[in-house]
């Protein structure tokens, strides 16, 4: 039986799984599934709220009439703290966290270590070597004691101190601005986890994971089907 996706091929009644599905038939089936717009809007709203896009969430609420599900003002605190981290103002961020959710850092020591580490990185970035050394001595050393998993990360960070141009050192990736984003994401997840939320991952991200998992399972069983190869564009390739 031909697998070229030619819709006129006669298909046997026992459309065995092993023979694969044509892409056209596949897309037909997909098109026939009805998903109400309100469901999609809820997904989008959930994404915006989870990721902390307060302005966008407010606008979307106005334009689509979708309820945010939480009081958007509570996002303010969270957003301020995350912005602080994006600007490299770690100690301010930590103080805000300790006012907003005092138990968070005690309950998430690994996160706390990453925040401390980020502060050290900022000091090094500003070539504030004396303060960096002092901070490392007083605050970071005991983190390594309490949790041996962080020793390796600690060593890499401290090694930066040995270089005149830390940005070009083998550990320069730590100084990239994207590293701040990494810490911010980790913090956001912790906020959501502590907040009695259902999940710290947006439902949209969860759906994508589900598609990937389902495709993996089908691949394991060597089933042929039209596969979604690009998540960002939802492009579905021919059955292979």
């Amino acid at each position: 039986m031909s697998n070229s996706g030619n819709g006129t091929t006669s298909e046997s009644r026992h459309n065995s799984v092993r023979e694969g599905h044509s892409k056209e038939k596949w897309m037909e089936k997909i098109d026939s599934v009805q998903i109400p717009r309100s469901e999609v809007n809820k997904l989008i709203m959930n994404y915006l709220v989870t990721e902390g896009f307060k302005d966008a969430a407010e606008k979307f609420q106005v334009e689509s009439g979708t309820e945010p599900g939480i009081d958007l003002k509570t996002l303010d605190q969270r957003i301020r703290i995350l912005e602080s981290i994006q600007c490299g103002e770690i100690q301010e961020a930590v103080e805000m966290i300790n006012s907003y959710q005092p138990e968070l850092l005690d309950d998430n020591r690994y996160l706390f270590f990453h925040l401390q580490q980020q502060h050290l990185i900022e000091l090094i970035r500003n070539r504030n070597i004396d303060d960096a050394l002092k901070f490392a001595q007083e605050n970071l050393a005991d983190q390594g004691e309490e949790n041996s998993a962080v020793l390796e990360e600690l060593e890499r960070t401290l090694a930066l101190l040995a270089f005149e141009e830390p940005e070009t050192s083998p550990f320069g990736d730590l100084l990239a601005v994207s590293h701040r984003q990494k810490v911010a994401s980790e913090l956001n997840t912790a906020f959501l986890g502590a907040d009695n939320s259902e999940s710290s991952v947006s439902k949209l991200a969860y759906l994508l994971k589900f598609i990937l998992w389902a495709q993996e399972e089908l691949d394991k069983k060597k089933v042929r089907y039209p596969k979604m190869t690009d998540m960002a564009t939802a492009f579905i390739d021919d059955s292979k």
Partner: protein
Amino acid sequence: MSVDIIMSSQEDLHSTRLSFDEAPWYITDLYATGSDKVAKLGPAISKLKNMIIGSNRQKSQALRQGMLPQVLNLLGDVSLPSSIRQDACISLGSLVKGTPDNVQTVVSANSIPKLIAVLESADEKLISYSLSCLTTIFSHEFAPTEALFATPGLIPHLLVLMNESIGNQASVATILSNSCKTREQQETLCQQDVVIHLAPLLCLSSLKVQMPAVNCLTALAHKNERVSNIIATTRYKDTLISDLLLCLIGRDGPIKLQLNVARCIAYLHRSNALSSTDPKVVMKALPCLVRLCGKEHDQQIRITAAETLAYLIEVDKELQGIAAISNHLIPTLADYLKTPTVVYKPLNKSFSVNMIQAAFWAFASLGANDENIRKRIIETDNLMDRVVAGLDDSNEMVALAAVRCLHSLSRSVHQLRTTFKDHSVWKPLMKLLQHGNQEILNVASSTVCNLILEFSPAKEHMLNEGAVEKFCKLTQHSDSRLRINGIWALMNVAFQADEIVKTQILKSLREIGTDQVFRLLSDSEVMVVMKTLGLLRNLLSAPHIDHIMDLYGTEIMQATILTLEGDHGPDVKEQALCMLANIADGSTAKELIMMNEDVLKKITNYLLHANPKLQVAAVLCISNLAWKEEDGSAERQSKLREMQVPKILHQLITTSDQALFDRVKTALNQFAPN
């Protein structure tokens, strides 16, 4: 390495000194007095809070620097602005998230009453910080739960606070679930309506609130019939609480929640609040627990599931049967005993041990009643080897679990025969008979009783291990269960044993005390008396009767008379008469009875006893005494005729009791001329 250099300079900060270390400004400022007090306190307590959050070292250091007493004072000072009191509370909450030592220090400084006092304030934030702190404190085993019950009105107040926010709900439910340790505490909480207050929490969709509620109900139900019944019959908005629990056991929910709900139902069942046929038990809790033993789950989940399952089915044959055919349970449990072949990280030793323990407990429950289930367990690859290895384990809990398992399986002793071809099981089992732990001693001795009857080749081997002495020693124990097991074991050893073994037994008993046998015959536990008589009967079996009576005849006769004269039930008397019958079976031993007028009279009296069983035994005595094929039977028969025995026998021949009739016929035959 750079890290080492930095860490080595921390040494002086780690030295422990009795007096307070030199304190930084933010701690000394806490003690500020005067007009600018509040202006100083604010920044100080805030700085302190930020220093200690996240770092155990900073917490310990701050304690050494003397912050605790003053922080407690600030907490309780109602004249201060709320932000300062809140920061003080947050600081305490942070301290108790440190090391257990930190927690101990905080508790010892009398913090708990101060935290409780704060609950009366009007400041909602302060209350929630205090509840958080208390929650953390009470999550530790050593926390003084009495403190909660010592404050009058606290429990109802906590229940009121619980309704005010989700955070409070989680905190209060967790605190209460950690405070149901004793029966008294369970009863008190139940009386204060905690059960009905927990019900709405089950209906909320937040795991943070559902879990502590379930855990609290579980703790309340544990081994407490009264409270369990209340839980099972209480309704919230027309639905039974037990039905509300069921909504949470669904497979789509979090695994830990399923496990905890199943455990709650198991406890309710074992406290007789739910029957074993209740679908909640048999269709929900049991399958859930079986499922959670599967390989795909975390070790800790599997351990708790197996232990809870063992508890659930421990005494019910039906449940055991269902579990045994569910989901390949037996091979799944056998998997618990396999040491992992690929080690991704250092083996968590304590977890491995608990896996083995949990599996043994589960097998012990599964195999408690059914022959077929036991067969399947025994036939599982490698399992008996692991059980025997477990007996020898230095960890007491593992040894106990292993011997319990073996005990259940020992009820199929003939099946074990093929497994224990060599004597590998005896050495460790004998060692356990000297164990300090009474529970182990009890189960081990019961197991030996079961095994010893069948394994006759092993008897000699056991004598070499000093088994008889060990059993004799048990007969002196203050715990009646152990005395029973000791004497029962001796009885089984004596069964069809050779002369060496028999004399060894008597010798060892004598070594304990010349009147040990008498003491046992006057034991307050009827079972001990019965088994002692059983022992004597077994000792007095052919062909050793004469020899034994030669050595110990006087004692044995005395013992028998003692028993016949004593205030015992018919079962005991029957045993004594059977013993006499055995003695009467010996050649020379017969004379000991014939010479004893008193005994003869007693036997004769029993011929006419109301209880046919006793009559049968008495007739057997007569039969053996009169046995015409033995030398000297003529003299003996003449004596018996003097005592009107044949006349009485003739009276008995009209009996309707078949057994009695047969015996009487045989007896009369002895008196008949050839």
